[in-house]
């Protein structure tokens, strides 16, 4: 449950951050939510959240595009089909998101029960 909440939180915070800040602001979003909502699979949470965010955004832009620039860029790289470019986009975001979330989670020390 906490995992899903963490994914949604990273997704939402990164989305808002990217409206105002450069691309690497997604790392700050993932880091914060890795720390605050630490789950059992922090890397996966960051990876999935940012991967989904970037994939959906790229896919939406392409679905509504006036021209097939995505396909042309795919050929420049060259990866033949634009779906690979979208997946590469998602992966690049995801890997940064994953490590950022993990870093955040690692900063947090588990609360130990302290007895005096």
């Amino acid at each position, binding site marked *: 449950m906490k995992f899903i909440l963490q994914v949604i939180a990273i997704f939402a915070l990164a989305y808002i951050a990217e409206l105002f800040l450069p691309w690497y602001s997604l790392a700050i979003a993932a880091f914060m939510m890795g720390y605050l909502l630490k789950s059992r699979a922090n890397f996966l949470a960051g990876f999935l959240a940012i991967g989904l965010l970037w994939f959906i955004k790229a896919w939406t832009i392409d679905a509504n595009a006036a021209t097939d620039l995505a396909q042309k860029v795919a050929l420049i790289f060259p990866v033949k089909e634009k779906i690979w470019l979208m997946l590469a986009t998602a992966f690049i975001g995801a890997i940064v998101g994953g*490590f950022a979330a993990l870093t955040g989670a690692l900063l947090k020390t588990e609360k130990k029960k302290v007895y005096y």
Partner: protein
Amino acid sequence: MLRKLEKGFYFQALKPKLYMKVFKFLLCFLITAGLIYLLDNSHIVKGNRLPPLGRFLDPFHGFWQNIEAKNDSIPEQPVIPGLTDKVTVVFDSLMIPHIFAENDADLYLAQGYITAMHRLWQMEIQTHAAAGRVSEIVGEVALESDRSNRRQGMVYGAEKALMGMMKNPTTRMMVEQYTEGVNAYIASLTDKTLPFEYKLLDYKPEPWTPLKCALLLKNMAKTLCMGDKDMEMSNALKLYGKDVVELLYPDREPVGDPIVDNANGWKFKPIAFDTIPRSVPEEYINVKKLPASDPTTGSNNWAVSGSKTATGAPIVCGDPHLNLSLPSLWYVVQLHAPGTNAMGASLPGSPAIIIGFTDSVAWSVTNAQRDLVDWFAIEFENDKKDKYMLDGKWTETKKVIEAINIRDKETFYDTVLYTHWGPVTYDEDFHAENNLVQHAFRWMAHDESEELMTFYKLNRAKNHNDYLDALNHFSTPPQNFVFASAAGDIAMRVQGKFPVRRIYEGKFILDGSKTTNGWQAYIPNDQNVQYKNPVRGFVSSANQYPVDATYPYYITASHFEAYRNRRINTVLNESKGITVEDMMKLQNDNYNLKAAESLPVFLSQLDSTRLTPKQAKAFEILKAWNYINDKDSEGASYYEAWWDVLMPLTWDELEKNKITLSRPTTYNTIRLIREKPDLTFFDIQGTPEKETAGDVIRKAFALSVNDIETWKQEHASKDTTRNNTDEPVKWSMYKDSYIGHLLRLEPLSAHVLTGGNHDIVNAHSKTHGPSWRMVVSLEKSGVKAWGLYPGGQSGNPGSAHYIDMLDAWCSGKYYSLLFLKSPENNHAEKTITVNLNPATK
């Protein structure tokens, strides 16, 4: 002391688990930071520059944001500091802006802003190219071309042009306002809205300057009037002698209609000087010359008078042929302010409209071929080259150190010598390693000038006098200005700053030790080749020899056109009751006059009984061909393939010689084949036999049929839908015309299937062609115009308007241009209106 001890104790007491945690955190943090660094910077992988992947692929700011949505999006009502009043811009369905301003200053500021909105990257890269600064962006691959541009004095010329612009208050206002507009747009850019190519190459635009406007005009001059053959002609003179030079490279070929035929009508007293001797160089000139612009670059324009048209109104037509590229060379715009309402093609990077019409007149240009380049042999005092001989004195050279910044490398320093004449382009460090004498480059476009004033005035012209007055400001690159007015006048004027040349002056290398060998005077504007309302009812130009033999000035050039002009004049002579559609048809005319004149001669040399089956088939196709280079024509493919082999095979000895030489023209080659088939040049080098023109023709035929067969096989293997190699070889497919993106990126370029070729009115060769087609009917009830170009208004490959005019252009169709009187939407077409607002104080 105690504390220290405590601390030490504490650390020692730490559990290994915590060490591990700190280590894991740090490792993870470093990986994240490292990834961000790696993905936020560009890297060279296997020689190719990869864009910064994170920044480039980020769908919120990266290239995905350059993909425009289906519905046109234009920034709404931007506030632009520097505007004095509100400016209204109406974008029509082709994304052509119609700019309505309350004064000239706002008009040109808005033109700069709006043009940059669609073409900023192109504007900057073209001016960077002219300035020899592309290495800054793409690295060492551009060093050679950067050095070339600097050594040709492109910046030196642009600085002079800028001085001219700044002296005249009107042109100064134009470039300063335009610059302010471009910079207002640059200031509005964000990571998200940065044009695609900046993201791909990972750099940012720098501020625009008036010098960049000047560089852009010099770039055009380089394309159009830097051609010359002085070194080649001097070598030919030394190698073959005077008679052969006259035979191979006559100044005036016995062909065609000059632009202006006014025999014995030149009633002025020409400026005259004593002749200078034709000097034969002591040694051959051994220079690897920089590639000249394609000699098939040319243009058509004509105007027919009302007496020949269906409506009784004059019609002006123009189609400048240039290297076709993307983003498109031209940007169509309407500019409206008190005192001016003009529309037509503008050059991104320059204010005003270059080819177009107002509500009373229309004009277009073709390149006026004339030699405006001279090379002067320089005698240096010693190897230091600090001084050179000029008028009996050792005169100091000026050493300019060009610093070329190269991306990711150390700056390259190149020393260029400047003399009285201009820069020494080629020396022991550049393209002339084994040359003995060095030469200085004199080019008309290095002189101060004020071309923009011509366009300022043409954009406001009402009649023929206004046109003449406007043209008086125009120097380089010289153009044949066609003109017509709604009042009924038609006219043609070959306008430029032309030196008064003595016979043979400029055709060969000149002695650079005497200033009197340079240009002494210029042909006065009113003595330039021109006429108005000729009896034949039309005026036309297609880069041919400009004037009849009674014109009193010596004219020489690197080449003149021989075919398009005659075809245009034949059609116009025969036509009556001309409609706009007739003119569009003529602009797209694919009749190959060169083939009509040469193919029967070529075919007569073939012995049909001694051909292979493939050759026999080619022979039949050629015999049945109608001389029309239509898209689907097979005869055109065989003819052009034949010609493409025949021309170099004929002149193979010129290429085998190590010294710099040039080929005779197409027309002269065909003439010599017909008239002098035994000429020694027809002997193919490296064979024991002595060949004549007939042998060369037969050999070229056999080779060209092989070329076609090879093409068929390659094509069939590439295209799986065509497994039969016996399918016809269609001309459009064989020609495979290509409109390349300026970065030479294949996916951003376009292959198109069209007819035509160089030497044909529809002059669309593989890479060059009609870069703008315009037809204007000057009706008293209102000027009507049609036009389009092979591309689109937007330079953004992610825009619907990147190449939206291309299909219509390929099929010879036209768009009716919306010419508005006011910004109010009282027309049928769907438009978007944007207000540019001045900043409120």
